[in-house]
């Protein structure tokens, strides 16, 4: 709980750049603190890059950006060994994946081969180049963006890969008042330049540890399990939420509780996070679409149906 104030400052910093997007900013921070990654599904120009830059600046972290294009190769992501004639050895030039905070822009524009290089790195925390395995340093936070799937010339991410993102967000356009405010602020000097670091890498890692050690009562764990298993029973669902989804939800809930300056998780955290954490892990049957059921509406519906615990669970 020592970093409670810093969390507030980080949010404040980012909000200088991202006006009216408290929810998305908070959720991104939740993902970062929970040691997870975020998939942003959005149209270009709504400020994804700006948010990530502000975040990395506040955290005093190394920021890298990869613009995915159809001709991008895996080595463009991971890095490549180059022969040094002077010393007669191959030297490894690390790719952008070795940054602390990585913005993977328009991830669905590139080939599945390149996509999987990134996703593998996210999951395994290391990359293999020319037979050599290189570990990635913590903190490591990927914010991938993709255009809405129906566009031409895209390679949609396989469902199994989506599971590797802690949450999927969508920013959307700002409302008119916020947009006007944005214009006012960027009139002379961009606010991103004013942002100063709040904490350093070391402190961020400590915060992540603290989040990890937060207490989750059995009552709440059972609630999570109930929620997740309910997604597998729904008649609209072809493939329900995986156990990885349960773990992710608990991790995210811990981080959210941490941001709320609370050292225990309550069902409200779960209720708040479930649509962002679980929606992209559910594969609906085709019939569901005809009946107007979407992934997030399904999660909301299940949340309304299962009973929130009122009494303490007796142990043993």
């Amino acid at each position, binding site marked *: 709980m020592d970093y409670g104030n810093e969390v507030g400052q980080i949010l404040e910093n980012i909000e200088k750049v991202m006006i009216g997007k408290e929810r998305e900013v908070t959720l991104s921070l939740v993902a970062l603190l929970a040691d997870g990654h975020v998939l942003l599904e959005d149209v270009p120009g709504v400020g994804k890059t700006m948010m990530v830059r502000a975040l990395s600046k506040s955290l005093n972290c190394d920021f890298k950006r990869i613009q995915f294009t159809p001709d991008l190769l895996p080595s463009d992501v991971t890095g490549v060994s180059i022969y040094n004639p002077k010393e007669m050895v191959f030297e490894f030039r690390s790719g952008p994946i070795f940054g602390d905070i990585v913005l993977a822009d328009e991830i669905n524009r590139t080939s599945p081969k390149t996509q999987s290089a990134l996703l593998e790195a996210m999951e395994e925390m290391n990359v293999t180049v020319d037979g050599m395995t290189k570990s990635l340093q913590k903190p490591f936070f990927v914010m991938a963006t993709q255009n809405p799937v129906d566009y031409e010339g895209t390679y949609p991410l396989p469902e199994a890969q989506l599971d590797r993102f802690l949450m999927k967000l969508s920013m959307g356009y700002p409302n008119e008042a916020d947009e006007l405010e944005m214009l006012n602020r960027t009139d002379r000097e961009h606010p991103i330049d004013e942002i100063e670091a709040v904490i350093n890498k070391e402190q961020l890692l400590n915060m992540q540890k603290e989040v990890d050690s937060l207490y989750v009562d059995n009552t709440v764990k059972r609630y999570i399990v109930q929620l997740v298993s309910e997604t597998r029973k729904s008649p609209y669902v072809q493939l329900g939420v995986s156990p990885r989804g349960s773990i992710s939800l608990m991790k995210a809930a811990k981080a959210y509780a941490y941001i709320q300056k609370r050292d225990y998780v309550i069902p409200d955290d779960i209720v708040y996070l479930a649509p962002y954490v679980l929606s992209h892990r559910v594969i609906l049957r085709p019939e569901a679409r005809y009946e107007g059921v979407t992934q997030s509406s399904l999660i909301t519906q299940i949340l309304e149906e299962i009973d*929130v615990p009122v009494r*303490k669970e007796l142990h043993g």
Partner: protein
Amino acid sequence: MKKNISLESVSSFILLLAGFLLFWEWLRPLEQITDTGNVHLFVIYTAICFVTSFLTRNGWAKFVIKSVSLLFILDYLFLDATLLSREWIQTLTLELRYNLAAVWKNDWVLMTSFFRSFLFLLLLWLMSYLLHYWFMVANKFFLFVVLTFVYLAVLDTYTIYDGQAAMIRTFVVSFLVLGLSRYVKLMNNVDTTHRKQHVWSWMTPVLVIVLFATILGIYSPKLNPQWPDPVPFIQSTAGHVGFSDGPVQKVGYGEDDSQLGGSFVQDDSPVFEAIAHDDIYWRIESKDLYTGKGWERSTELDFQELTNGNLGWSTFSQQVETTSYNAEVRPVNQNQLPKVVYPYGINRITSLDQGQFFTDSEFGLIESESSEQNQNLSYTIEYDAPSYAINELRDNSGDDPAGIKEQYLQLPDSLPERVSELALEITDGEDTRYDKAQAIESYFSTNGYVYQIEDVSVPEEGEDYVDQFLFETKVGYCDNFSTSMVVMLRALDIPARWVKGFTGGVEAADQPPLPDDYSLYEVTNNNAHSWVEVYFPETGWVPFEPTSGFTNPTDFYLETSGDVNTEDYMIDEEETEEETEQESSEVEQENEQLNPDEDESEVGGADNEEKGNGGNYYWIGAVLLILAILATIIYRKLTELRDWYLLKKWDRLKQRLEIEASYVYLLEILEKRGMPRTKGQTLRQYAKEVDRRLGTSEMYDITLAYEEYLYRDQPSLAKDNKRLHGLFQQMIDQILA
């Protein structure tokens, strides 16, 4: 804020005033339908109770004011002695002792008027308390409004009380107040300083709508009742047997009409069968002399033998248009009917055995020679059914012959003045004799006169039969209606006479083969009837039917538009007979005089006669009211009882200092108070909603603490247990308040 307070007290005053006005409507009919007198005193007492409840909250002050005014009213009504003197107290204790003893022995009838009034005042006290609670505390106005409407509707239907004006008053008052109370309820949740402006923007449309609806309701045309009087039907369905103390007779035809009145029981034994073209009225005779108690003949009967069965007289003149028919009459029971029944326009009568017939042309009586030995002989009648032209009846301008005037305008000297005054009032604005007769004919059915054969009074010594029916009882059967019409017509110098006979009966289930338009009718004792004939100089005697629920089968038409008004609709009903029980009725009357009449007050001063009509209502009404009050009190106590139980439970929980049990208890009482938690609602969401609805903030604080207890590793409850405890207490007080 000051404005708000004044607005609230003004609105609550208006609510209470409206409650009082509505309750007044409950008291108003008492004077008419029961033997309660001095109703104004009871109204004043109710008003005192209402005002006291409004002005003070001090229970003792209320009690003292109400009981002192109760004593004052009783003193004013009954006690001659000086207030609080020794004698006064003695009388009081004596009264109480006597009446309590009577109550103890279930001799309700023996209770004195004093005690009845006392009980009634107590009832008013209770009612005022109850209404005050409904309006002021529970803010439930609607139930009482509905009850008031039901009460008025029932009284209007089943008693002589005319509820029309009361309905309108109740409608206006109750809807205005419903609008206002709705507004007050809405404003309870809104904390705004602009209430006063809102009041008018709310009340103006309410006012306009209510007044518009009222005016529209009053002036829009209304259907006549589809079922003019359900009482006889309900009574016959329920198998009700009258418990009147008056003489009870069997329905049927009787010759002695000198003492009319008294109750009847139904008798559906057949009298005769008739084959006729329609369910026409069967005439037997008319009578001309009204004695104040009944009908007699002014001259002796003078029978002439018929030659060849030709009658030689008619009730109407040659000018009247007629249609020729035949009819056959077959008497059924021996001795049932010693006279011949015949339709209007009879020309000729013959019997199968060629027996002789005798007739009295003055009263229209026909007897057969064989009536002594062979009563069941059937006879055939040729008749010309008359159709009266309404125009001609209106144009009848000639003078009545002196003989008719002399015989058919007779009225007893003892006839009260108000009968003729009423006749003048009814016919005010009518020019022609026909219109006057029609005005009187239709007066009864539109002015709350009720047709019933049970609990019908016999006029007492010195009381006029017609006067009693018109002004006192307003309840009776055909004799009451027809006699009253004849007497009122005569009071207007219109010659009229009283006619007896039978209505057309019902078509028999098994019809023999008959020519077209003819049917076989069965006529029973229940069909015995009396009606009215009015004399028109150029037309002769024209039948009228004043009795509620009956329709004149005689054909009337307007010359211009041809044949109108041929109504064949008939309700079977009954008629009278009264050779019997003359003595017993006298005995009854003597009893009445012996009955101790305690005081000069009219309250409860019922004699046996009146008890048959009003006294029952009085007691049934009182018992119902008391039951309603008890039910309400129990209902209210039930909630209190439950609250008490819940609080006890809380006291136990408090001792144990268990937050979980306490919180679950809180959820339980919230659910009982109509604020259940929905399934997917988290505790915080629920707490916010509860706080918003109750205007509290404690629920959220409690929930935060409870969450910590539920979900935290090592809850830090112990330290602010006391504060939490206070929060719980406040919350529970709020919920149960």
